[in-house]
């Protein structure tokens, strides 16, 4: 079992390296990733929101729903810890 998992890990590493031959080179200015939507963000961010930091405009305006989801994830973690670790106390105090 352990040997199988190790083998799978090796295969996965090699596959990922092999997949690297399909993507554009490191630092390529004209890769598809940095031309399609990304250019639109850089060229319009300051005009759209008077905010020089493009990343801020992106996470809080263009894709603000993602950031709402992110806040909900944090909230979910807080509620999860609340559910798991708090709440036994009242019964223990009654026992004591």
């Amino acid at each position, binding site marked *: 079992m352990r040997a199988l998992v190790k083998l799978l890990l090796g295969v996965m590493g090699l596959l990922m390296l092999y997949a690297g031959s399909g993507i554009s080179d490191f630092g390529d200015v004209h890769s598809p990733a940095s031309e399609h939507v990304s250019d639109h963000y850089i060229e319009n961010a300051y005009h759209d929101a008077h905010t020089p930091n493009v990343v801020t405009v992106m996470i809080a305006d263009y894709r603000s729903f993602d950031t709402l989801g992110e806040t909900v*994830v944090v909230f979910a973690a807080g509620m999860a810890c609340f559910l798991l670790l708090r709440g036994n106390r009242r019964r223990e105090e009654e026992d004591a």
Partner: protein
Amino acid sequence: MIQRLFDVVVGHWPYAFTVVLLVIGLYGMLLKGNLIKKLIGMNIFQGAIILAYVVFAYKKDGTVPVIMFDEHHHAIEQASRYMNPIPHGLMLTAIVVGVATTGVGLALLILIHRTYGTLEEDELMERLRRDD
């Protein structure tokens, strides 16, 4: 095939490093016997994915995606001068998700330790079997 892999390691050396990191994280996550170490492996794994995204964002001679101004206070909005902002923004969200998952994982580990008194997987399995 070998030639192609070699090309990747040379042409994409930061990406090749993230692959190594990712495999290390997966190894810790799946094969370590201690539950805390599994959680640490999970963090390494997520860190590797975050680094992979950031590697994809790099542009040669690009700078931080904060708009600069020239001497006449006009914004310089030439896309090739800034790095790709999208992966950075996405990874901010992914980092937060990682933090939240780690928090919940630690809470579960505390519950397990409180009930069974151990976090070593083999001892834990032993105690679980005796619990029936």
